[in-house]
């Protein structure tokens, strides 16, 4: 499988480590009143879609960046690759 890195171009998937659902970048507030429940959902509840799926990949053997990859779980076709940093910033997070 080839992942088309937004900065570095097409790279073999063996340069990357797969983490899981892209929602993992939305870490709940640990100080909130309902933190226990929020963290339970954050850690354990996953959708398992047959089709388009957004997931986190880490370019371990490359530039060490985190990516949000949109992949079709039925065909493995990758329709979009974004820097996780940009995705978080678009949501108003980070600096």
């Amino acid at each position, binding site marked *: 499988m080839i992942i088309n890195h937004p900065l*570095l*171009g097409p790279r073999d998937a*063996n*340069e990357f480590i797969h983490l899981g659902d892209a929602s993992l970048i939305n870490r709940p507030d640990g100080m909130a009143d309902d933190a226990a429940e929020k963290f339970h959902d954050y850690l354990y509840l996953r959708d398992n879609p047959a089709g388009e799926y957004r997931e986190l990949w880490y370019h371990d053997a*490359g*530039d060490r960046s985190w990516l949000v990859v949109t992949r079709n779980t039925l065909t493995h076709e990758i329709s979009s690759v974004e820097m996780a*940093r940009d995705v978080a910033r678009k949501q108003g997070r980070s*600096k």
Partner: protein
Amino acid sequence: MANLTQTSSLNGYDQPIGDMRLREITDLDLTSLAIPHKGATKLKTAIKNGLSLSMPTPMKSTADAKSRLLMTQPDQIFAMTPRSKHAESTIRKAIGDTAYITDQTDAWVVLELSGPSSRTALERICQLDLHPDVFKKNQMARTTMEHMGSMIIRTDNDTFILMSASSSAASFLHAVEISVQHVS
């Protein structure tokens, strides 16, 4: 007091193999420059003034006859400059406090592979497309070779610099050497 002699990771390995030459490069200071938050413009000016080089971009290194700069990851530059007594203070003298500097000289082993068959030898261990139309002069990449994290830079049409962790320098040399031997 004990009298210690400094040695490099591969004792200055240098061998002609077929039409190629594989050698260890030992006369470089290696430093990592982390760019402070919103400090890219300042560092760019400091690099221009202190090292007479322009800022590298992803995959594209900048170089003159003595020094080379790589962009190793977002907000991080890797500097290869002539060997001095103390890498960190030498680079700090050149760019001041415009980056967080870490001496990496002992952390990497640097090999240079040159000669007409270099690309043929490298295609056995490097999964990237190294055709000169795609991977041009001064282009660089971080990747893996034989499962070892490495960097590759094309410094000329048939010349490549290969870098990997000095802790596995012998294994890295072995991998490259075998590939070179198999095509010569």
